[in-house]
């Protein structure tokens, strides 16, 4: 069984070598996943191309002609730069710039080189296998076949690596984040506040699952156990990379447990907003102390020894932009001020970054992550026991397990990341060649 699977792989592999464009099917199967057929257009940027989503695998992109052209282009660039660095006489700044570009292209060049080598090896083996007469040594044939299998799977992996190497690096990926949850507004009842608290618990669970540091900066509970808004700092490995697509409006649909609606089985809808702010390093955001106004209880009067209060809340206002941050989490005014500064820094950074992303003008936008705050990104339907992400169509069951913030959330996030990486590659391809959007399949 195993060998036939390998054989299957191998035959497809050889077909792929000889005639490109054969789409790969992956062998992964998720019984829980269902994908909706989208024919709606407005979600997919300005390209008026209806797309049917298949379970995406980055390896698919290898067969995309534009992608291949893009790779060739990169390789050409790499060759030119290498030659220049070796032979030409360059000024210091030129050399520095070229070296930087060279280092950026190195991973792609490396994988491409290995891939070419593997393909050459495969062709050699093929020629050996097919030119050999029938009465060749059985043992030798067996060995060659094994070698062929190995090289085939190697080539598969290398293709995936190549595409992965094409994904533009988001230099914010390894950052820590400030995560804020804000309850939406309701006309009545506290469905939003309850949902906000459940989301807070979910992210807390996720941070625990990923072994991240979860530090509460601000926590404002509402009545009856709900949550108005809260801010936490999550620190660890690649936090921003995992959480960057969580930002946006999340919608909840459930039948309340008590009250008139419960008896009538009427579904209530509520929303809450998650805000993800990457935490920049100190020098990324330069804040002039003169631009800040710090409000504390002691601002009035002489202060100092003549006043004794327990009020330690601090609010910092960045005067040029009007962005504020406040904290009253601890009993020490200084600690509250430090925390508020951190949040302010993150918010300022976000507003600066936000302006940068607006300036991108490709036709194909990175679908995941540039939605405005008002558009809902995910729906949590408790009465039907499913969670649906509207950007990719990913749906999962067992909402109770999902809200624990463990493996289920991780899977959804992985899926989102793959989608966004795929889009990022395609966008990079487009920018380089200004080829008008060709569907990937």
């Amino acid at each position, binding site marked *: 069984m195993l060998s036939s699977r390998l054989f299957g792989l191998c035959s497809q592999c050889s077909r792929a070598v000889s005639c490109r464009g054969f789409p790969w099917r992956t062998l992964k199967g998720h019984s829980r996943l269902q994908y909706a057929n989208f024919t709606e257009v407005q979600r997919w940027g300005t390209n008026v191309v209806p797309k049917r989503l298949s379970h995406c695998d980055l390896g698919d992109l290898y067969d995309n002609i534009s992608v291949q052209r893009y790779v060739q282009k990169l390789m050409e660039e790499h060759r030119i730069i290498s030659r220049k660095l070796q032979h030409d006489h360059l000024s210091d700044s030129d050399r520095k710039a070229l070296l930087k570009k060279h280092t950026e292209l190195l991973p792609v060049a490396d994988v491409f080189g290995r891939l070419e080598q593997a393909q050459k090896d495969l062709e050699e083996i093929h020629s050996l296998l097919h030119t050999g007469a029938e009465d060749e040594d059985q043992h030798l044939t067996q060995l060659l076949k094994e070698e062929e299998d190995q090289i085939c799977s190697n080539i598969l992996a290398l293709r995936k690596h190549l595409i992965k190497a094409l994904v533009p690096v988001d230099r914010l990926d390894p950052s820590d984040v400030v995560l804020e949850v804000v309850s939406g507004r309701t006309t009545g009842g506290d469905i939003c506040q309850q949902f906000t608290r459940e989301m807070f618990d979910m992210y807390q669970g996720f941070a625990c699952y990923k072994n991240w540091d979860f530090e509460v900066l601000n926590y404002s509970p509402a009545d009856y156990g709900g949550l108005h808004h809260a801010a936490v700092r999550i620190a660890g490995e690649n936090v921003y990379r995992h959480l960057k697509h969580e930002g946006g409006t999340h919608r909840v649909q459930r039948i309340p447990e008590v009250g008139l609606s419960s008896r009538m089985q009427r579904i209530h809808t509520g929303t809450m907003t998650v805000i993800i702010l990457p935490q920049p390093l100190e020098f990324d955001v330069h804040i002039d102390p003169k631009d800040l106004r710090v409000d504390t209880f002691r601002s009035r009067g*002489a*202060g100092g*020894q003549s*006043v004794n209060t*327990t*009020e330690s809340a601090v609010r910092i206002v960045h005067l040029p932009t009007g962005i504020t941050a406040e904290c009253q989490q601890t*009993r020490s005014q200084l*600690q509250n001020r430090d925390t508020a500064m951190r949040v302010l820094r993150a918010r300022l950074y976000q507003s600066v970054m936000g302006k940068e992303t607006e300036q991108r003008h490709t036709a194909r936008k990175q679908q995941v992550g540039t939605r405005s705050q008002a558009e809902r990104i995910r729906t949590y339907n408790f009465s039907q026991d499913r969670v649906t992400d509207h950007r990719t169509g990913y749906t999962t069951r067992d909402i109770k397990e999902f809200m624990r913030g463990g493996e289920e959330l991780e899977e959804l996030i992985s899926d989102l990341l793959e989608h966004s990486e795929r889009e990022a590659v395609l966008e990079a391809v487009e920018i380089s060649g200004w080829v008008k959007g060709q569907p990937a399949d």
Partner: protein
Amino acid sequence: MWWRRTLSSRCRCCLGRRRSGAKWIWSFHTRPICSAPALPSGRITALQALDVWKRHFVEKGVTEPEQSSQYIIAHLLGAKTIESVEQQKLREFLSKEKTEQVWQLCTKRLSRMPVQYIIEEWDFRDLTLKLRPPVFIPRPETEELVELVLSDLQKHPRVAETQQTCLEVGCGSGAISLSLLKSLPQLEAFALERSQDAVDLSRENASRLGLQDRLKVYHMDVIKDAERMLGLFSSISVLVSNPPYLFSEDMASLEPEIFRFEDHAALDGGEDGQNVIRQILTLAPDFLSNRGRVYLEVDPRHPPLIRRWVEENMEELRYMETRHDVSGKPRFCILQKEESQGPRGGSGLRNPDPITLALAQVATASARLPPPDSPLLKINNFAQIVSILGLHF
């Protein structure tokens, strides 16, 4: 008897610290009776207790009614702030003992006792300090003073000194010294404090924080015991203080939390608020190493006055700068000891004979004579003159 118990609880909150000897004075005419709400007969939740006491504090005109009840009840539930208590816990019924504790502590607040004294602790930067009346409660401005010292030390590390030392005048609960010690593992600290209560509390806090090996607290008055201090400390890198700096005339208008419970001697700085400040600056050159610095927290009106006084009276101290607190008020003065011009230094003498050397020493030493109004001039023998002037024969 139940009535005596109620009476005594009323009395306790009214009389506060004004107990005279062992006799209880059962007079209700001296202060208005501050009556606490009756202990609930049934069980209540923390949320309900918060509400009851907040409303009561508002009724009785107690400042910060909501925070007071929140901090007290959070403390009894084992947390520092009410936000960090789980929602579940707040809605559970309190035990009988817990309820009594809540009532006992909140009743103290009716006498305007500061929350920090009621729960006997408070946070200062990253430390939690034990606090007891009448020892002065650290203020948020002083947190900034510590930040100032730390950032200054980081910017200009004194490489010459193998051991960095700091001296605090008037350490109170030990907040400044302990905070510095915690942040600088290499630092050694000395502290002077005139109140025995404060000396004991500082030592207790040092022990609780595990810093007792690096902090030496001296029970001394910087004005009355000035002679004893000479020669006791030398080559100190940093002299830091939050001295009493209020103007005497402002003492009467202090709010009850401060006036009734905190040590007035820790607040009153004299007619112009600078009595202790001047004394510290007078003694500073004796204690400090070359280019050692003085950091003071002062009243917003003081910095220009202090600058002028130092320029007129202290040759060895240079006023470096004034820094502002987070509210934008001038709050911190930084001064530095100038390079001392010893006989080896700038007197320009080469191979002087002993008599000339002695005369040169007297000449430079006379520049270090304390100003006329300083109590240091209470000298009564030659040995003291010699030691004051730092002469060597």
